[in-house]
Each structure stands twice: as C-alpha cells, then as structure tokens.
C-alpha cells in the first residue's frame, strides 16, 4: 500500500492548485496555507530504508507539482520534472498519467520540465527513483482531474456525478452520451467537484502493466529525435569545443599561438575560461569555428602551457598505495574452521555516454539561457547564477533528451562551461566535448580497493566484512542538499557515509552472521561522480563473488548456497526463477560456465544467470537469463530494456573497461583504448523474466541489475577457469 492509499483512507486528497486560464490546467501543488491540505506524511520507516525513500519523503510536496493541461482539442500536455536519458521514464510516467486520467496514451503530449527552482531538489533524475517518486502523484492528480471532469459534465447534463464514468478522454452518461475532456476543460477549471476523487485500483489499469516501446522509438528510428546539438532554436550559436587539462587539476598558464590558430580558415574565436575548479568543473580554452571539424583541427593546433596539477606525481601505484593507507582492516579472527581473506581492486571507469558533454548557451546582459540535460538542474541554476553574477531567476535551463548518462550528467559541467564561455565570448555557442576530453577529463566512477573477509564456524558463515577505500566520489551535485537542505560545499561531509549505508552498498541480503561494511575515501583531483548504482556497483559485485567462493569452500552448489542464505522467500523466488529459466547446472563444454549474481536495491530484486565462454581470445557472454521482481511493473518491455542494459555494463566492467592514471593524466582517450561491450561480446540468447506484482507500487529498476550482472559475469569466468577474480578488468589483469 502506497502513501497515497494510506492517507486517502482517512484524509482528503491534496487540493489541486488551479492555474488561471480558459481551460483546466492543474498543477497538483499543495496549497500550504489551507488548513486541511494534505501533506504526505512520513510513514513508519521500513526495516530497510533505501536512500531514495528519503528523496521521496523529503521531496513529497514538490513531487505533487505536476503540470497537466487539458486542451480543448482533447489532447493533454504533460510536463515531467525528470529526464529521459535512455531509461524510458518519459514512457512509464506518461503511461501512468494517461491511465490515471482515463486518456488514451496517444492523446498525450509529453515534455521534460525546464529547470524550475520552485521544485527545489525534487527535480532530480537519479537513484532509479523517477517512476517510483511520481507514481502516487500521477494517481492523485489523475483522480482529481477525473473528478473535476465528471463534476463538470454533471452540471451540463444535470445528472449526479456519481452516475457518470470516464473512458478514453470522455465522460460518459448512463445512456451513452459522451462529452470530451477537452470540451469540459473550461468548466472543469472552476467547478466545485461534487464527487470525491477516487484513486484507481490496480485491477482497473488498462495501460499500466502492458508492454510498449518507448514513446519516441519512432522518432529515434527515423532520425527525428532531437538531441542537444541538433537544436535549431539558436541558429547563431557557433560550434565550440573545449580544450581541457591533460593533467588533472592543472589550469591554463598561457596560450602560445593564438594569432596562428585564429588565422586558420573558419576559426571564429578562442576564449579562455576558468571553469569552476572547486566543483571540478574544468576550465580551459574554448575554440569556436564554422564547424566542429574545423574547431577540432584548431584545438589540435593550439599550444597551451598549463600550470602544474595537484596529481602530477601520481600514477595508479601511488593511488593504490594511498588508498591502502586509509583502508580499514578486517577484524574477525580466523576461526580455524575456514576463512576467505581477499583483496580486490576496481579501476577508474568512465560513464562514457554516447553523447559527450553538450550544451547550448546564450548569455545576454539580463538573461542566461541554456539548453542541455543536467540531471539536477536546480543546482546548475544556483552555481551558474553565482559564478556568472546573475540572479537565479535570470537563469533559464531548457531540459532536453540526452544520449545516455549513467550518472554523468548529475553534474552540470557542460551547461556551466557553455554559459561561462558564452558570457566571455559575447556570443551564443553550442558546446560539445570531443570524445578525447570526455574520456580523459569527464567524470568517472572512482577507483577503489577492497578488503573482504568471511569466516566459517560450525559449517556456517559466521562473519562477513567488507572494507572499501576509494578515491572520493563527488556528491556535490545537489544530492547532499536533499538530506541536509543546505549546500554541501566541502567534500561531502557525512553525506557519503549516509549514502553508502542507506543504498544497496550497505545491504547484504544473506544470513551471514556478523557483518560489517564500511567506506573510506580520499579526495583526488580526477573528476568523479556517481556512476550507475553508485557504490553498490563495486561493493555488491564483490560480495557476490565472495558468496560464490564461500559456497565452493564449503563444497556447496552456488545456487543452493544462496537459496539457503537469502533472507526471505521473496528473494528466493527471484533466484529460483533465474535458475529455473536459465537451466542452472546444464551441461556445458569445458571452458564455458554459468555464473550467478543477485542484487537488492530500490525495493526491487534481480538475479542474473550468465554463461561465459572463455575458450576464445577473450571471454564472451553466450547466454544471459535474468529474473527481476520490480515490485510493480509499469512497462515490462521497458523493465527488460534496463535489465539487458545492465548485463552489458556488468560484462564491460568485469572484463573490458579501465582508465589508467599516468602522472596525473588519464591514459585513455577514445574507444581504441577505452573498451566496452560490443556486439561480438553480447549473448545471442537473452531473456528477462518478471515476477508478477508483489507490491502495490513500483520499485526502481534503472540501475538495479548492474551488481548482479557484473557478479554473474565474474562468477561464470571463475567457474570456467578455476581462477579467482581479484583485479579488474579481467581481460587486462587475468585475475
């Protein structure tokens, strides 16, 4: 039962906030002045509270502020205060609203809201909570609008509203007469509802739960989808490329051949810009030209002298040594009945979305206007206003689609730089990082070392410890604000530990006796940030590898051992589904093996059974069977998309991807050396099996699969080769 159900059982629905206009425009904003307005209450904390629960509870009032406009032509204009970066949330959220309105999906016009500071920190796309956080608001606002529509029709027909029903964008009378929402919209805007809003029950949903392609699938397949650099709204924005530091944290000392480069045909401007070093938003030199191709040539020709950087003496071995020094020790004594004590290392990895960092900016005397896709746009507004000396109300950020994110655009590097460069250059620009800068300077999942120890007593796992030490992951994009409600300006005080413990990384869904999982961090100048599933990507993957190794040490089957230790039947059901559908234990040739991985987060559960063939020059995923309990499924096709996506990310992180730091510089500069899963790595046989709804509301799924997929890949490789995965990626280090 969701919060809305609980509250509506005893209190009134929140009041719709009517925006003056000729037709019904509802923003489900709370009227806080009204004594009987409903404020979503804080429920009793569940036994395991996910970090994103905190987002949803603290942001409650702002989440109900959804703009829904019922147009006279019976179309519905709906603004979603979230971004679609490939995870499909525009489709799920539009479906949720359409179903709760009783409107056909094809009547919906769906847009992403601009940055709206009134939404405070609730306008955040991340933490796999977009669908979850807007589930109740869509239900409540849909119910309110239906109630207004039936009340408006009741007035016109002089019938009791209770006799009327709604369907496909119409109010229908018992005798079959119909009035469209569009024709009722003007009256509905002022009517006093005569029927109480009624939330739909799960069995009444027609659109929710049905598989459908993403709403812009056709736009994408026909080349009509408009990414940031395809914008035509600012025709005089000139193509601009940033030349950024090679050595992390260095700043521009001098540009040594400006005249020579300016003389290159097609070069328009060379603009040094400071960035925002305290936020690791790099400064550098922006090169504007007639085309990006010319700008890139000019960038390559430009000679820049840089200051020393804070990491110039540091390469991977020094970083590892430093992390080793801050790492806590495992403390459990050897029981003499069995112990695994193992050290692991993950490298830096890039988010490397297919669309590099991009933004269009037009800065004039009284306005900063930006087109881009920052996932936490209101922090971007704050930082840009402050740095450029404008009022926050003068900064407008139009949010468009992004070609992937994986956490990368939680920070606002490109929109910030674009605004700064546009102001300095005195012209509108379209800023695009080249792939080289995007990999060498773009934000990363920080490198980490891990010490794990588990002991056995009486044939059972008695202790389980995990000590992670990592280069500090930057959380100053605004996430901390949600918790502290103040700008966290220095090194994430407390927020990182809180996040670590309250997200999946702090959760181990097995009965393994005494457990302790902890995090130590050290700030380095390599730009970082949350990366899909954040700390759990490293922590829970390794926990799952240890679970496999414990099973083998005890002479048990890896699947049976997990079954025995998992904390509930709900968990076992997901594991069983993967094992059954994937035919756990089926005979395979020597060198090919199955591997299991399990993960719980965002009130969802996932199990992966991956088969890996190690007989060729590099391991290949040959089959992947996925089981998922997402709590409540809005779009099974979209759920499967996210789960398949994580299979490929997990495979890449375990076998292929690494960034190396050489004397303060990231070595990798393009796809030749930064390797990711390709078609020839991907399984020709994949399937995703979704457990029928186990909750009244959806859990999160966008990041859910990663740790289970990565663990399944590593465990399959270990079972195929007899080796122990310790140092990633395996294709580089062997084990």
């Amino acid at each position, binding site marked *: 039962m969701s919060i809305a159900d609980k509250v509506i059982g005893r209190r009134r629905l929140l009041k719709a906030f009517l925006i003056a206009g000729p037709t019904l425009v509802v923003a489900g904003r709370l009227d806080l002045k009204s004594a009987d307005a409903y404020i979503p209450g804080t429920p009793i904390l569940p036994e395991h509270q996910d970090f994103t629960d905190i987002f949803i509870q603290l942001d409650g009032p702002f989440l109900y502020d959804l703009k829904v406009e019922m147009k006279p032509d019976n179309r519905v204009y709906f603004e979603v205060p979230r971004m679609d970066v490939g995870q499909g949330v525009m489709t799920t959220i539009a479906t949720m609203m359409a179903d709760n309105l009783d409107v056909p999906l094809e009547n919906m016009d769906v847009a992403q809201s601009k940055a709206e500071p009134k939404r405070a920190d609730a306008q955040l796309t991340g933490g796999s909570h977009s669908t979850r956080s807007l589930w109740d608001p869509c239900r409540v606002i849909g119910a309110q609008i239906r109630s207004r529509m039936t009340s408006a029709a009741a007035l016109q027909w002089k019938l009791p509203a209770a006799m009327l029903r709604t369907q496909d964008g119409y109010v229908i009378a018992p005798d079959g007469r119909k009035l469209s929402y569009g024709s009722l919209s003007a009256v509905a805007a002022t009517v006093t509802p005569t029927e109480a809003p009624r939330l739909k029950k799960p069995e009444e949903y027609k659109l929710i739960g049905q598989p459908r392609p993403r709403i812009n699938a056709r736009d994408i397949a026909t080349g009509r989808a408009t990414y940031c650099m395809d914008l035509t709204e600012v025709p005089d924005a000139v193509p601009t490329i940033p030349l950024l530091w090679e050595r992390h944290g260095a700043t521009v000392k001098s540009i040594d051949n400006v005249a020579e480069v300016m003389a290159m*045909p097609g070069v328009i401007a060379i603009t040094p810009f400071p960035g925002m070093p305290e936020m690791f938003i790099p400064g550098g030199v922006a090169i504007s030209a007639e085309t990006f191709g010319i700008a890139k040539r000019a960038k390559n020709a430009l000679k820049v002298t840089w200051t020393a950087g804070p990491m110039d003496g540091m390469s991977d071995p020094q970083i590892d040594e430093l992390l080793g020094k801050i790492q806590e020790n495992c403390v459990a004594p050897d029981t003499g009945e069995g112990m695994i004590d193992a050290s692991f290392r993950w490298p830096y990895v890039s988010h490397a979305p297919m669309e590099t960092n991009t933004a269009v900016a037009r800065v004039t005397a009284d306005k900063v206007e930006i087109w881009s896709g920052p996932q936490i746009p209101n922090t971007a507004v704050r930082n840009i206003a402050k740095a450029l000396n404008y009022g926050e109300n003068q900064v407008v950020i139009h949010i468009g689609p992004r070609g992937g994110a994986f956490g990368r655009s939680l920070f606002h590097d490109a929109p910030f730089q674009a605004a700064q460069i546009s102001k300095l250059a005195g012209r509108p620009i379209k800023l695009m990082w080249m792939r080289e800068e995007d990999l060498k300077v773009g934000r990363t999942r920080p490198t980490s070392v891990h010490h794990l120890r588990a002991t056995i007593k009486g044939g059972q796992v008695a202790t389980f410890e995990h000590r992670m030490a990592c280069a500090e992951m930057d959380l100053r994009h605004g996430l901390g604000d949600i918790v502290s409600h103040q700008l966290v300006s220095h090194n994430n005080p407390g927020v990182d530990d809180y996040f670590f413990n309250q997200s999946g990384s702090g959760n181990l869904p097995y009965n393994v006796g005494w457990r302790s999982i902890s995090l130590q961090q050290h700030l380095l100048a390599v730009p970082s940030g949350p990366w899909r599933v954040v700390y759990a990507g490293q922590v829970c993957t390794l926990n799952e590898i240890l679970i496999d190794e414990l099973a083998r040490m005890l002479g048990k089957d890896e699947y049976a051992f997990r079954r025995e230790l998992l904390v509930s039947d709900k968990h076992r059901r997901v594991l069983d589904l993967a094992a059954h559908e994937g035919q756990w234990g089926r005979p395979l040739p020597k060198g090919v093996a199955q591997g299991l991985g399990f993960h719980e987060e965002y009130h969802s559960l996932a199990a992966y059974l991956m088969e890996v063939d190690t007989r060729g020059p590099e391991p290949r995923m040959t089959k992947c069977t996925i089981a998922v309990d997402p709590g409540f499924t809005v779009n099974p096709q979209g759920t499967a998309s996210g789960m398949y996506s994580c299979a490929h990310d997990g495979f890449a992180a375990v076998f292929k991807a690494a960034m190396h730091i050489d004397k303060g510089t990231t070595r990798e500069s393009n796809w030749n050396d930064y390797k990711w899963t390709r078609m020839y790595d991907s399984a020709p046989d994949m399937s995703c099996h979704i457990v029928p709804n186990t909750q009244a509301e959806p859990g999160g799924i966008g990041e859910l699969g990663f740790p289970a997929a990565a663990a399944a890949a590593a465990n399959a490789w270990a079972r195929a080769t007899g080796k122990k995965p310790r140092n990633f990626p395996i294709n580089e280090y062997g084990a």
Partner: protein
Amino acid sequence: MPTINFTVDGKPVSVNADNNEELLWVLRDRLGINSVKYGCGVGLDGVCTAIVNGQAVRTCITPVGSVAGGHVTTVAGLSDGEHLHPVQQAWVDNDVAQCGYCQAGQIMSAVALLNKNPHPTDDDIDKAMAGNLCRCGTYFRIRTAIKQVAAGKYAPGGEAKPTAKTVYYAK
C-alpha cells in the same frame, strides 16, 4: 573553397567546403542535416554511419570531396518517416533504442548488412555490427531485429502504432 555537389537522402545539395572536411561536419554544420551524430571522430563507434553509394561509411572520417557526385543516405532517408523501412519498423517494434543516440548508425549498419546479406548468421551479425558501439547495451534487441527482418517479418511501409507524442523541449 570548391563547390561540392552530391545528394543526401535523395535531395541534391551543393556546398562550399574544403575537400578534406569531414562529411559528418559538412552535413551537420554546413547543411543542417542532423540525422548523423558525432560519437568519436575517429571511426571507432559507428555513431555517424551513413550509406554512401551503397556502402556503410563512417562520415566522421570521410572527406567530403570523396562523395562529390555521389549519393548519401542517412537514417532520415530510409523512408518518409510515416511508412517505415522494415529495419526501422523492426527497431520500433522491438523497442531497440534506449537513449537512442547511436541508433541512427546502428540502423544504417544493419541496412547495409541486410542489403548485402539478406540472411546473416549470428557470426555475420557480430562482424558487421562490430564497429557500432552502444553504451546502453541494446545489442540483443539489435540482433533480434536484424533476424526478424531477415525472416521477412516486416513489409516495407508499415503504419505507425499510436503512442504519446514527445515534445523535446517544454514550452
């Protein structure tokens, strides 16, 4: 700068550009044709793939002078956008795209493959699609879509199934 003539998606274009300028940037920045995207600039991820005179090429490393007098087809030229090419229809029905940014290139590589080899094996698909990177990991559905087209599941000119309309930037 010379004037270079060729066709894009069936329409003649004429552009003043240096022969060595990359086709990708001439299309996007000089001709305003945005149905090819930038991914890496060095021909390693296939995001910018178009078909030139029947061959799939990486437009980011193709000098525009080399296509003079030729025919360039981007994903926008495969159909009128309403009645789809079978590969486009297979992409929609299988919900292949996630972020969608690489898919114009994926589709063009798939079309080039199927034009040459109407019944590709898994191995053929691995080889033909090796140069097209997808960070969202849509490979399984790409493979499925290609196999479905090869099996004749989609006739040309399929009608759109109704769905919501995406407004790319809020009013």
